[in-house]
C-alpha cells in the first residue's frame, strides 16, 4: 500500500517537476527565440517588460488570457475548442518517457529519472507524437475557414510524410542499442554518442523533427504570408496561446529526444547528468532557432520531394548499412 502510495507520489512529483520545467522552458524559449532572432537581424528584440524583457512571457500570458475568446460563425464548436489542447497535451505526453538522468536510488528504490521507463519507449514516442497532427488537422478543419483548412491539409500530409522517415531513422538507433527503452538507448551511448556512430540517421532525424515541429523551413501549415497563419488563423486568446505553447513544448520535447537518441543523453564529464541533459537540449533548441533565422520556407513540392524521394531512401539505406555493419562486426 505504502509502496503504491509512494510510487504515485513519486510520479506526481516527477510530473509536477517536468511540467513546471518544460512549461518554463517553453515560455522562455519564446523569449529567447525573439531575442536571438532580433539580435541576428540587428534588432534588440523584446526589451520593455522587466529587465532585458525578461517578464515578456508573463506579459504575453496575461495578454493572451485577457483577450476575447473568439469562435467563428459556423465553426465546429467542440472540435474547435478541443484542438489546441490536443497539440499541447500530446507534446507533454511524449515527455513521459524521456529520461533526463541516470536512475537514482532513493530509500533503496531504483527510480528512473523519467516519469516512466517504458521498455517500448520509442514506440510510445512514435505513437503519441503522431497524435499531435490531430491538433493541427482538427483545429484547421473546425475553423471553417479556407486558410485554416489549407493549412491543416498541408500539415497533415507533411506530418504523414515525415513520420515515416522519422520512424525509420530511429531503427538504426534501436539496432545499435538493442532496446526500445529510451533509458537503455542512453545507456548504450555511455562512451560514444550515436551522433558520431551514425551521423546519417542523426541528420535524417533532425530534419524530420524540424518538419514535425512545423518550424521554418517546414512551416507550411502556418505560412503567415500565404495562409494568414494557416490552421490557427481563426484562433485568438489563450486558445491560440495553447497552440503556441504546444509548439514550444514540442521543441523542448524533440530537443530532449534528439539528446536521448543521438547526443548521449545525460552523459558527460564533470557536470551533473541533469545539467548535461539540459545543456544538450538547449543546444538543439538553439540550433532550431538559428535555422529559423537563416533558411527560407520550402515550397510545397520541394517539401514532399525531400520527404519521399530523399529522406525515405536515405533512411532505408541507412538501416541496411547499419545492419550490415552490425552484422559484420558480429555484434
Amino acid at each position: 500500500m505504502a509502496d503504491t502510495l509512494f510510487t504515485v507520489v513519486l510520479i506526481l512529483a516527477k510530473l509536477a517537476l517536468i511540467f513546471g520545467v518544460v512549461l518554463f522552458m517553453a515560455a522562455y524559449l519564446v523569449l529567447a527565440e525573439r531575442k536571438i532572432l532580433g539580435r541576428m537581424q540587428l534588432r534588440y528584440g523584446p526589451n520593455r517588460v522587466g529587465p532585458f524583457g525578461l517578464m515578456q512571457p508573463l506579459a504575453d500570458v496575461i495578454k493572451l488570457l485577457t483577450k476575447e475568446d473568439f469562435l467563428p460563425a459556423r465553426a465546429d464548436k467542440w472540435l474547435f475548442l478541443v484542438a489546441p489542447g490536443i497539440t499541447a497535451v500530446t507534446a507533454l505526453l511524449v515527455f513521459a518517457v524521456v529520461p533526463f538522468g541516470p536512475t537514482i536510488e532513493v530509500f533503496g528504490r531504483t527510480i528512473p529519472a523519467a516519469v516512466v521507463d517504458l521498455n517500448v519507449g520509442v514506440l510510445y514516442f512514435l505513437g503519441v507524437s503522431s497524435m499531435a497532427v490531430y491538433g493541427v488537422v482538427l483545429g484547421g478543419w473546425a475553423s471553417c475557414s479556407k486558410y485554416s483548412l489549407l493549412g491543416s491539409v498541408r500539415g497533415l500530409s507533411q506530418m504523414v510524410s515525415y513520420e515515416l522517415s522519422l520512424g525509420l531513422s530511429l531503427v538504426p538507433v534501436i539496432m545499435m542499442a538493442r532496446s526500445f527503452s529510451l533509458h537503455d538507448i542512453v545507456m548504450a551511448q555511455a562512451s560514444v554518442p550515436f551522433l558520431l556512430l551514425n551521423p546519417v540517421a542523426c541528420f535524417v532525424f533532425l530534419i524530420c523533427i524540424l518538419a514535425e515541429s512545423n518550424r521554418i523551413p517546414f512551416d507550411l501549415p502556418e505560412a503567415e504570408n500565404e495562409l494568414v497563419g494557416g490552421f490557427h488563423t481563426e484562433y485568438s486568446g489563450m486558445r491560440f496561446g495553447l497552440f503556441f505553447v504546444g509548439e514550444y513544448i514540442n521543441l523542448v520535447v524533440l530537443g530532449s529526444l534528439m539528446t536521448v537518441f543521438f547526443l548521449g543523453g545525460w552523459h558527460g564529464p564533470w557536470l551533473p547528468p541533469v545539467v548535461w541533459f539540459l545543456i544538450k537540449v538547449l543546444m538543439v533548441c538553439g540550433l532550431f532557432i538559428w535555422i529559423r533565422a537563416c533558411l527560407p520556407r520550402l515550397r510545397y513540392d520541394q517539401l514532399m520531394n525531400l520527404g519521399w524521394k530523399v529522406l525515405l531512401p536515405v533512411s532505408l539505406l541507412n538501416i541496411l548499412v547499419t545492419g550490415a555493419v552490425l552484422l559484420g562486426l558480429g555484434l
Partner: protein
Amino acid sequence: MSRHVFRDIRGTLQPFWVTLRNLFRKPVTVQYPEQKQQLPERYRARLILTRDPDGGERCVACHLCSAACPVDCISMQATEAADGRRYAAWFRINFTRCIFCGLCTEACPTKAIQVTADFELAGRDPLKLVYEKVDLLVDHCGNDNSYNFYHQTGIGVTAPRGENPQETKPMDVKDLMP
C-alpha cells in the same frame, strides 16, 4: 541534380555565418520614445494647408487631392468669395485613414496641401484625428515662397483680368479694328 551543387551548399550554409556574425553586432534599432531620429527633409507625415505669398489661402478646393487620395481621407466643399476666388468652405482630412503617401501633394496644382515631418499623431479618440480646415491651415507658404496660383490662371482674382504677368489686357470684343 543541380549543376551548382557546391554553390547551393555554400548558399545554404552562408546564412548561418551571416546570422551568427550579426548576433554579436550592435543592433541598429533606435529606441524611439527615448531617442529621436533626425528625419529626412522630405519626410511625409501630417498634412497642412499653406498660404500664398500674399497671405491668401492657397487651396481652391479643386478636389484633386481627394481624387488622388487612395484611402479617401480628404473631403471638402468649394465655395466662391466675393472677388471670385474659389476656396474651401470646409476642408477635412481624416488622419485615422491617412496613409501619408503624399499623393495629394503631388496632385495639388496650387501647392496648398503640403506634408510636414510631424508624424506623432497617435491618440485614443479617433475624432480628434479628424482635422478641419482651421486645424490644417497654417500661416506660412510651406516649401514654396513664390508660387501664387491665381497669378497664372488668367481669371481676375488677385489682379484684374489680364493684368497678371504673361497676359494681355482683355480685348474689346466690339472693337471693329482688326
